[in-house]
């Protein structure tokens, strides 16, 4: 490989500077601030602050509410990532089969992605609000005592559905692209050999989609962990009880509603560590088993 040689030593740094500045100001600086604050016990106005070392972390990690939040997050993220990806894959495969109106169908599928999380949350809230929701009434008629305001499982189902619905489009887009990259000849050869459609999907299409699936797994996990705040905020606000309080929501609630700055900062540092670990794990261990075409 030929190395590009810049005429001046300063030029590459100059070209990199804007990106570096953005990274430093918007990522490293806040992260450093979070680290600093996680070691302090402070009143909301920052009038008095005492260094408490790792006391905030000890308190957070021994708080049963925090452990509950970890559990809620695990259930929520795993469900959203799995459902959003499997439904999107199913729809992408079905969309491939259509001959007429492919573009139209695909465009419709992509639309929900353009909806802001808070708006998506409101949409689902309006459909499933126990008192005025248009879809809550049929559920009642069917004999289901639908009440996400008090029933923890119903609340969880509702936010999973809303978060999944919003992410399907994105996954769909990538799966469609992934499917188009699979050589026709392989599938035709399998058909000639007498493989059933289902068989050729699991033995040819699915393994060849692995890079896409892996990429989406990372993206979806991060999405479920971080980008679903708006939906949870709009639909359940973490309730009932603490049944839908994910880790990110708890950071917000403790820091910005309850004004416990130190513990909230400690939680965001823990989150940072979780994300770094998760990404590293996915790239080290799962990626090895992925065959890039």
């Amino acid at each position, binding site marked *: 490989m030929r190395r590009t040689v810049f005429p001046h030593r300063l030029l590459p740094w100059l070209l990199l500077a804007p990106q570096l500045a953005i990274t430093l100001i918007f990522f490293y600086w806040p992260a450093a601030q979070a680290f600093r604050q996680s070691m302090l016990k402070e*009143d*909301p*106005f*920052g*009038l008095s602050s005492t260094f408490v070392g790792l006391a905030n972390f000890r308190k957070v990690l021994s708080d049963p509410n925090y452990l509950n939040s970890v559990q809620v997050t695990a259930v929520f993220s795993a469900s959203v990532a799995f459902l959003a990806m499997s439904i999107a894959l199913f729809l992408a495969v079905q969309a491939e089969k259509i001959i007429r109106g492919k573009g139209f169908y695909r465009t419709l599928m992509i639309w929900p992605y353009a909806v802001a999380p808070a708006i998506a949350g409101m949409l689902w809230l309006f459909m499933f609000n126990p*008192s*005025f929701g248009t879809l809550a009434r049929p559920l009642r008629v069917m004999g289901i005592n639908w009440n996400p*305001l*008090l*029933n*923890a499982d119903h609340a969880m189902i509702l936010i999973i559905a809303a978060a999944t619905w919003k992410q399907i489009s994105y996954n769909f887009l990538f799966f469609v692209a992934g499917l188009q990259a699979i050589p026709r000849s392989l599938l035709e050869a399998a058909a000639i050999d007498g493989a059933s459609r289902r068989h050729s999907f699991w033995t040819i299409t699915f393994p060849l989609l692995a890079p896409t699936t892996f990429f989406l797994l990372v993206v979806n996990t991060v999405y479920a962990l971080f980008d679903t705040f708006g939906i949870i905020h709009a639909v359940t*606000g973490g*309730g*009932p*009880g*603490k049944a839908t309080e994910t880790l990110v929501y708890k950071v917000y*609630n403790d820091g*910005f*509603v*309850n*004004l*416990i700055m130190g513990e909230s900062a400690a939680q965001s540092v823990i989150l940072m560590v979780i994300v770094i670990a998760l990404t590293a794990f996915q790239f080290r261990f799962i990626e090895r088993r992925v065959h890039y075409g």
Partner: protein
Amino acid sequence: MKKTALWCAGLMAALPLSAHAATEISWWHAMTGANAEVVTKIASDFNASQSEYELKPVFKGTYPETLNAGIAAFRAGQAPDIMQVFDVGTGVMMGAKGAIKPVAEVLKEGGQTFDKSQYLAGIVGYYSTPEGEMLSFPYNSSSPILYYNKDIFAKAGLDVDNPPKTWAEVWAAARKIKESGAATCGYTSTWLTWIHTENFAAWNNVSWATNENGLAGVPELKIDGPLFVKHFHELADLAKEGVFVYGGRTSEAKQNFTSGECGILTESSGGLGDIVKSGMNYGIGQLPYDETAAGAPQNTTPGGASLWVMGGKSDEVYKGVAAFFAYLSKTEVQQFLHEQSGYLPVTMAAYEATKASGFYEKNPAREVPILQMSGKPPTENSKGVRAPNLPQLRDIQNEEYEKMLAGQQDAATALKNAAERGNAAIRDLTGG
């Protein structure tokens, strides 16, 4: 082209010189809709009334968002001059000694006379120190009242002109509404924390917490007392029967009422606007009390928000703030605020003037919260509640109440948990 640009630049440079040198005063607020128009009107009227100061109101989002914005701005050394903070944030502001400047001090230094006796005692008392120094200026105050749907009452065979006065009567009426099929839900309520816990305690003259409910020192919650347990036990029973429907932690339940789903609602007097707008045939009554409580009904406590003056500003700014508060206390301004926004007047004179104008004969609902709040001189149980972390305490209570209403625990357990968890959180904060 170049000439025009130059000309523009010249004009821009000249502008600050031509503008009159009025001192700018920033006011961050959280008012929306009709109430935001009231803020704008008051500010522009104040600016027109004098030329030394220019008041600039800035909308900063919901109550918690405004508080957070103010805190963040203070930490960055960019705090506004005046900040509107909701009742729940009062304890937080009071704890921030160096960040704020007491309103009584601002008024005195600004050369304005401040006569406490002119103000409604119940409201001003809530925003003062135990020693009686007024810390913030009560801008918008409200109190919980009872609303009922007259059409549903008629259908259920209930007395349309006599709303239930006690909780026992509310439960009976609510059951009748459900049983007769007049509506699917008998009763609903917004804010279980503010109405059924804090105001329930004051109205029935029982202690919400030690140290005069936290007004005189660090509070220890007493919300697991027998009267609370009895009340929440009854509420949980109604929920089980489907007579009481839970709407949510804040004011969501208003919708269950305006949609005709529920026959009776307890809500803030400030919620009247939406109920009027829905066009329903509604009636209004006092907040119900528990007839087994001695001395009930006592008085209710104010909700709403007050204006805090931030510390570290110039004397010029404080003079302007003092002038604005003096203007805001004027009878005609208070009367305008009261009649337009539905919030309570803060001066006796404004109340008397509104009464004399015949406003209450046309709008009886507007007087109910005032009578409730100042009907009796407050006791140590009914001056209000204060805690350094009231938002967190309410959060904890909501969680426990929701578990109770879902049938996961009984009322006694819910209240015991709420008190214990709340007290642990208070100890944590105060290092006790």
